[in-house]
């Protein structure tokens, strides 16, 4: 047996975590084959390789070849293909019967020309069972101010960013060179989604939105630093075609339990929003940065986890003077495609220290999730490129 290092995570009773790969680079999302091998997408290509192929050897992942000379985020396996994204394009690679990439240097470019203005430029994807791929295009702005992140600057009327960003686009999973116009503008008013997953229990898209930053910095007359550290909520939305989650006009306040008008658009922290926007199905504390979402369909974990949602939170940066928070993986129980209880921390301790005053001090930050063929949960870290395997040990 290969050595599996104890990962030092805090987990519910009966679970254990091991480190199965380390020092890979900035690993964003990951995908696992039916053989237990892993594809890891790097945020920044390393030595010309933006995708790493790691082979399972007695539980440890051993680095094989790398390919794809672009940084990015998405990594999913669906129907015999590996899907990957750069910050502007979506690619797919045909897999052989062993789930190995047939032609690493010649992927099909499925989607091209998506906007990359640096801010919120990662393109995450998920796929349904009807031949569609869903791609996030994040808003290249915090709150659509005339001057981004500038104190007191008001919102741009009829926020023009929303025509080509701040939403989800649906494309065909098997068609080459699709541009914005070839896809369906599936949902709008989503500031930035990094974690999204197709729920196969009710055939619906679920997304995790990164809520806006800096309420106190930009509008100190309405928000003190304490309020700004927890507001607005990071939201989970159930998305149907045509939905509008309201960014940049509204945010969800998890304390008042309602949608509030953004200060950039005349709000004061109390004024309620127009009722026309989508409500979240679950709200989390602000700024925790949900970077991946996975509906668990395995049989290894106890019954309560079946069909529930795991969320990898990357951890906050804009909660000061409060300590930073959220470098953990959370679980939300689901039944028939609806949450059935409150969220709970599932795996914690990635950051290393108890109190993290600034995000640079976090040793590891959860970024990607994948379910192994045996029902284990894999978590990737984009600080050092660690991959964790979390298993349940039957009594």
């Amino acid at each position, binding site marked *: 047996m290969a050595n599996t290092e104890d990962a030092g995570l805090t987990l519910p009773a009966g679970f254990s975590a091991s480190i199965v790969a380390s020092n890979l680079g900035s690993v964003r999302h990951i995908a696992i084959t039916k053989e237990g091998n892993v594809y890891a997408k790097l945020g920044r290509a390393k030595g010309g390789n933006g995708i790493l192929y790691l082979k399972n050897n007695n539980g440890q992942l051993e680095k094989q070849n790398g390919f794809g000379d672009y940084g990015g985020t998405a990594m999913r396996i669906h129907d015999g293909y590996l899907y990957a994204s750069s910050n502007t394009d979506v690619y797919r690679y045909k897999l052989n019967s062993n789930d190995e990439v047939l032609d690493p240097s010649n992927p099909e470019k499925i989607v091209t020309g998506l906007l990359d203005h640096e801010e919120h430029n990662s393109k995450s994807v998920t796929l349904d069972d009807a031949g569609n791929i869903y791609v996030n295009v994040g808003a290249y702005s915090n709150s659509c101010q005339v001057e981004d*992140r500038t*104190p007191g600057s008001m919102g741009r009327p009829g926020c023009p960013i929303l025509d080509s960003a701040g939403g989800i686009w649906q494309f065909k999973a098997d068609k080459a060179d699709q541009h914005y116009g070839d896809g369906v503008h599936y949902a709008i008013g989503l500031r930035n989604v990094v974690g999204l997953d197709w729920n196969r229990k009710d055939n619906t898209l679920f997304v995790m939105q990164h809520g806006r930053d800096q309420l106190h910095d930009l509008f100190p007359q309405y928000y003190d630093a304490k309020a700004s550290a927890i507001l607005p909520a990071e939201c989970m939305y159930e998305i149907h075609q045509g939905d509008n989650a309201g960014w940049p006009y509204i945010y969800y306040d998890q304390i008042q339990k309602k949608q509030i008008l953004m200060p950039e658009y005349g709000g004061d922290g109390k004024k309620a929003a127009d009722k026309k926007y989508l409500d979240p199905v679950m709200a989390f504390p602000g700024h925790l940065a949900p970077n991946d979402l996975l509906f668990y369909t395995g049989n290894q974990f106890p019954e309560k986890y079946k069909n529930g949602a795991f969320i990898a939170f990357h951890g906050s940066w804009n909660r000061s003077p409060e300590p930073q928070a959220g470098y953990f993986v959370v679980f939300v129980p689901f039944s028939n495609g609806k949450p059935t209880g409150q969220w709970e921390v599932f795996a914690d301790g990635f950051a290393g220290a108890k109190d993290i005053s*600034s995000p640079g001090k976090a040793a590891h930050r959860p970024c990607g999730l994948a379910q192994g063929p045996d029902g284990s949960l894999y978590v990737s870290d984009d600080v050092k490129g660690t991959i964790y395997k979390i298993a349940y040990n039957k009594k």
Partner: protein
Amino acid sequence: MKNSSSGRITDIKPTHQKPITNGEKVYKKVCLSCHQADGSGVPNMTPPLIQTSFVLGDKEKLIHIVLDGLKNVDIDDQTYNNPMPALGSVLKDKEIADVLTYVRNSFGNKASAVTVAEVKAVRGNMK
């Protein structure tokens, strides 16, 4: 300068420390949430202010960044995705001089002070 009620001469702080105090105040109000309390920034989002040529080097360039903002610039081979807002209309010349003097002498940095006259000159050239 007024003496404190105790009247002891040691209560009078040397004048060169004053801008540091004002600068820290400005830093906490305007800069801290992105650049962090320890100046370490946010990985991949906000550059650190520690031991970087951007902070310790050419003052004119540094003043310009505060006045006019900065985006899409790689620093030491790292990409930072969050833009730096233009603070020329938010901060007065003295606040900019104070905060830059603070940053150039905090987080382990040691560099000369930035004066109001220097900020004024850069602002004047930008018009």
